[in-house]
């Protein structure tokens, strides 16, 4: 390399290396490794107790790291914690409110905690976009659940973080608000903020996230693009309505996990997404089944999630 050459090093927005955490004898995060690219929306999924919130709390600094390391845009979140915390905004799973202050007062104060002076124009944008305007002078105790969520998002963004962590942001909110918050998250992301999202709503992850990591029992069981994961692991279901009922599943279809339904008039077959249907059609033709109608449906992330997190499941 020539002396004096300027090398632009692109650090990932988040890099987690061999992360572990014990609470007493419980090993709640086990050797976790993953990175999030700058600018992406990344989903961290898993059933209750999978270790998602512990992981997020270690990134945010609420929980001490057991072993391993976390870096945010190339800065270690222990040795350079002031830098990393100023780069991160967190919307906690639990509604965290301070009843001493109104929304207006709290938002005016909050950026200062991050070493950033209050920016009235940016604050106003957040207030307008999140519909907080009519409630500015209410103390938080008087806000509805949905409004508290919106306020928490405004609070997490008030210092313009480069990485926004949304820990179950739409838990307990109605469908309309949920979709509104998804739109807002996409907008924030388009404007350059990387997003790490944990959610129980698989639809949310499928809709929002370019890549997902699935945790179970503290371990990573999947990590790839959402589309690829669904394509690789999901199955299509084919339902055939027969002209006469069958007493037993016909031989030769075992690999499609056949089962009968509707007094033997409905034959249900499963086939992997990536597998073509030619072979199956040939076999059905060979069996000379009288088929009145058929229907196919494609399983989504929800089925993949259940498949991966079922007892003993793993990728």
């Amino acid at each position, binding site marked *: 390399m020539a002396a004096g050459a300027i090398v632009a090093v692109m650090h990932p927005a988040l890099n987690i290396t061999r992360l572990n955490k014990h609470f007493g004898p419980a090993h709640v995060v086990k050797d976790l490794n993953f990175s999030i690219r700058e600018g992406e929306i990344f989903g961290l999924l898993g059933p209750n107790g999978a270790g998602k919130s512990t992981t997020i709390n270690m990134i945010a600094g609420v929980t001490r790291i057991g072993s391993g390391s976390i870096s945010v845009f190339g800065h270690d979140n222990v040795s350079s914690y002031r830098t990393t915390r100023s780069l991160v905004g967190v919307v906690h799973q*639990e509604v965290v409110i301070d009843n001493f202050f109104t929304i207006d007062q709290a938002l005016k104060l909050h950026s200062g905690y991050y070493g950033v002076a209050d*920016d009235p124009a940016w604050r106003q944008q957040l207030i307008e976009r999140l519909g907080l305007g009519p409630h500015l002078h209410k103390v938080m105790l008087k806000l509805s659940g949905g409004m508290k969520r919106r306020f928490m998002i405004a609070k997490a963004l008030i210092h313009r973080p480069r990485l926004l962590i949304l820990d179950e942001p739409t838990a307990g909110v109605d469908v309309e608000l949920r979709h509104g918050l998804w739109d807002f998250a996409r907008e924030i992301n388009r404007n350059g903020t990387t997003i790490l999202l944990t959610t129980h709503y698989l639809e949310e992850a499928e809709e929002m996230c370019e890549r997902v990591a699935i945790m179970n029992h503290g371990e990573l069981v999947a990590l790839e693009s959402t589309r690829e994961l669904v394509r690789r692991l999901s199955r299509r279901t084919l339902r055939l309505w027969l002209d006469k009922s069958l007493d037993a599943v016909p031989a030769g279809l075992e690999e499609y996990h056949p089962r009968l339904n509707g007094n033997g008039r409905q034959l249900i077959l499963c086939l992997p997404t990536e597998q073509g249907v030619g072979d199956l059609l040939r076999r059905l033709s060979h069996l000379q089944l009288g088929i009145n109608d058929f229907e196919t449906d494609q399983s989504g992330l929800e089925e993949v999630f259940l498949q991966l997190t079922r007892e003993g499941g793993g990728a």
Partner: protein
Amino acid sequence: MSRSDRRDEFRSWLPFYTLLRKEILRFFRVASQTLLTPIITASLYLFIFGATLGERISVLEGFSYAQFVIPGLILMGVINNSFANCSSSLFMSRYLGGIVDLLVTPVTPPQFILAYTLAAMLRGMLVGIVTWLISTLFAGLPWHAPLLAILMALLASFLFAQFGLIAAIFAKNFDTLSMFTNFLILPLIYLGGVFYPISILPSPWKHLSHLNPLFYLIDGFRHAILGVGDVSFAVAFGVTVAMALGLFVFAGALIGKGYKLRS
């Protein structure tokens, strides 16, 4: 939604100023509880000991009872309110979960301690100053060494701010928090010479009172105001500084480690 580039100018002390401002705003927002109530309590004590009983009691030659008791009452206000500000604010944050909002910010442990401490000291000193102003209606004070008196009051407020932080960290619920006040601070204050000089106690109690750390605070403060005390000012000052430093180091170690704050 337009979003201009993030202003990367990180102001290192702004997190501290913000936390300090928030803590001060917090107690002013509930001033009826945090300022008015202690001032009314102090006024009642002043009325009882200054205008009624005080005229019939004499415990220190050359001074009225009101003059004797007023420094103790001022310091009692300082101590109680410095302790209450730190302990209730931090404990409520822990109890209601709001502390995570602070834990995710770049506020450093020294900034954390300093902001809570200064806000608590301000509240304690405000109550002390108003108590003194009201006391002028009942008796004037000689102010033998006013700067030393202010120094003792500042030390007392600092010391009890640290104690408030420690109590808030160890308290499991509101009951255990109030136990610190009711079973520790109040008895030590009342037995520490607020209402009587330790020298008038019979032998075992007099010596036992010297084991009460609050005796040195109260006696040192009174000594600076009246010019007389049960022990020398240097001893009272030295013991107070030692206790303040000890609690500061302990509170600093707890908060630095995130004890009971970070899991």
